[in-house]
């Protein structure tokens, strides 16, 4: 695990946020375009334990509601309160200030089940992504 970003077929990204088991999660640029104007985000509670692949947050856009699934299992240790007051950050800066939550990953091996940049781009090209 480095500063590399990995992805899920449901268009979340996950990246180490400094120390090696602290992971930051957000949605991809493709996802924010699909979702359209984000109106608010229902953030998980700090301290909540979420298994890999379980629903962690809900993004409400003008168009519809979208579930955000945890790319890796772990305990939620931080949420991005900036997107509560300015949800448009998820659209304008999905990989930066539009991040959603941070978790303490409990099984580093799950990292290997995620898509790397090349794999995710291939998924977008094939149109096989799901979830959103």
């Amino acid at each position: 695990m480095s500063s590399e970003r990995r992805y899920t077929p449901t268009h979340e990204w996950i990246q180490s946020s400094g120390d090696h088991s602290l992971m930051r999660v957000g949605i991809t640029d493709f996802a924010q375009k699909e979702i359209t104007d984000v109106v608010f985000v229902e953030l998980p509670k700090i301290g909540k334990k979420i298994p890999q692949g379980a629903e962690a947050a809900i993004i409400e856009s003008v168009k519809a509601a979208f579930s955000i699934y945890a790319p890796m299992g772990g305990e939620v240790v931080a949420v991005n309160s900036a997107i509560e007051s300015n949800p448009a950050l998820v659209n304008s800066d999905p990989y930066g200030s539009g991040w959603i939550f941070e978790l303490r990953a409990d099984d580093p091996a799950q990292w290997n089940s995620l898509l790397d940049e090349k794999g995710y781009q291939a998924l977008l090209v094939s149109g096989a992504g799901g979830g959103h």
Partner: protein
Amino acid sequence: MALPLVPYHTRRLARMTDFHGYLLPLSFSSILEEAKAVREAAGLFDISHMGHFLVKGPGARQAINHLVTSDLEAVPLGKSLYGLLPNDSGGTVDDLILASSGEGEVHIILNAGNREGDFAWIRSHLPPSLALLDLSIDQIALALQGPASPRIVSLLSQGFETMVRREVRFSTDSAERLWISRTGYTGEDGWEFFGPAEAILPIYKSLSEKGPDLGLVQAGLGARDLLRLEMAYPLYGQELTPEKTAFDAGLDFAVNLRKAPFLGREQMLEKREDPERDRLTGFVLAERGIPRTHCPVIDPATGRQVGEVTSGGHSPRVGGGFGLAYIDPSFFNDFMKGKEAGIEIHGKIHRARFHSRPFVAGGLTRK
């Protein structure tokens, strides 16, 4: 089905969506930005999916007037009106815009999803002496909407800006296929253009090219739905269905009971007397959330379901989540008087209050 403007939208990187089998732009930039532009300047919508029928022959006006709730014969030639097409149990086949271009010529604009059903319904209720033509095949239809529309339409140098509200111009040279009207479904001033692709494409190009200098943006279905919901205009399939009458949907203004009897009139009146019928009502959420179609409406005192959301959304102009719902008469009166309802969204109850319709003042009501 591929509509003629799809390649133009693709070039503009529009996000496309399926709507009743038609691929249409959902948005070009941001739904909220596009809706704002229509309220403050202008937007251009591709509405080529909508139906355009022509009824031709002696007595066409009278024959169509017998099928619709509003009084077409009381309206002068070249002026449009809104009406509903009731079925024989008083429910609704579709809602439409009508105008006569002559005693024996009625144009009808109707919803995409109902085009085939409408055609069959109208055909089966017209005498064989009248011709019914579907002009929508290979058509382009546009809606130019917003307070800047008069200045933008004048760029076409056709004198359209001198038209009055609801006026329709029909073509003389392009053989009965053009409809150009000062109408729309956003609550703002504007024009709608229907016609063969070769006749409307130059208008689309001209407006798209020169309009942006006057604030025109390309706008998609997302903005169109939000704008119509802010005005509480009904959408067929949501507020209007084969079971619901114009009265249920609060469209009493579109029903003329003094005109010559029309098909479905008695059944509509009978349904109106039913004390059990649900009423369409506007509501706003008192807390954060976005109601969507089919969300249950709950009486917080009993936990009992007392209604269902037909259309919902989020609007910065309204100030949050809002929508329309059919509500049980037992709860309706208390709700109107200020009692809170619960709207169930993702399994959680959100507090909602009655709101009068429309939710915002459009340009047409601001004046």
